[in-house]
């Protein structure tokens, strides 16, 4: 079933505060074959909160995650994420197109810290594969 066009422009509720622990950073770094050195988070780490925002959005719209393929991801950083940060992501649906039975969703998530300051902004293109 196609995703509802009226979603475009809608901002979804912020994700619950996510506490960035050293353990979480180490797990993320080692999962991608690296060694955690106690420094700032890897550049793609903010996907953890951005993904949580996307999951909430998909749940709210009753879209199955298994039908989602990632098309594009862009990050624009104000500062690196460090252990001790408390992050929240707020997702807005930026665009929606239907091509060949697939929905092409554009989302933008603002990742902010405890003070409300922007840490990074990240945009994603999600391809929702229609029933074959």
């Amino acid at each position, binding site marked *: 079933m196609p995703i509802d066009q009226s979603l475009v422009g809608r901002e979804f509720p912020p994700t619950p505060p996510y506490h960035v622990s050293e353990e979480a950073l180490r797990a993320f770094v080692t999962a991608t*074959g690296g060694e955690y050195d106690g420094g700032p988070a890897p550049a793609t780490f903010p996907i953890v909160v951005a993904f949580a925002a996307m999951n909430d959005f998909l749940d709210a719209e009753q879209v199955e995650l298994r039908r989602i393929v990632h098309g594009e991801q862009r990050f624009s950083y104000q500062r690196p994420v460090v252990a001790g940060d408390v992050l929240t992501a707020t997702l807005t649906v930026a665009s929606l197109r239907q091509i060949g039975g697939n929905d092409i969703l554009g989302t933008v998530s603002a990742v902010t810290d405890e003070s409300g300051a922007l840490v990074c902004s990240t945009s994603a293109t999600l391809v929702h594969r229609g029933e074959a």
Partner: protein
Amino acid sequence: MSLEPQTFTVTRADLVRYAEASGDHNPIHQDKSVALAVGLPGVIAHGMYTMALAARAVTAWFPGAEVVSFGCKFTNPVVVPADGAAEILVEGVAADGDDGLTTVTLTVTCAGQKVLGMPKAVVRA
């Protein structure tokens, strides 16, 4: 300036660890039957896994540099076999700008095929 190519491997066990660490439990990264059912060629790596490897290459080339922006398209899936590993090659070319920022244009391939579209990082080196 051409940068030293970096090679990484990804296994199914890596994808299990990454799913746990990132929260992305999409079964297309674990379960072949689900992947095939939605029209994929097999179990594929998270796009963000491959992107994380590209980020590791950037870090290897510019240790300690702050990343200002980073983006790519996911143009071809990285199929990860049940046994063994997929190999990812990350190549890069750096260009210094007048603004003190360095733009790193990447090429990320698996078995000779580009898997990321126009991957690019901007760093304050």
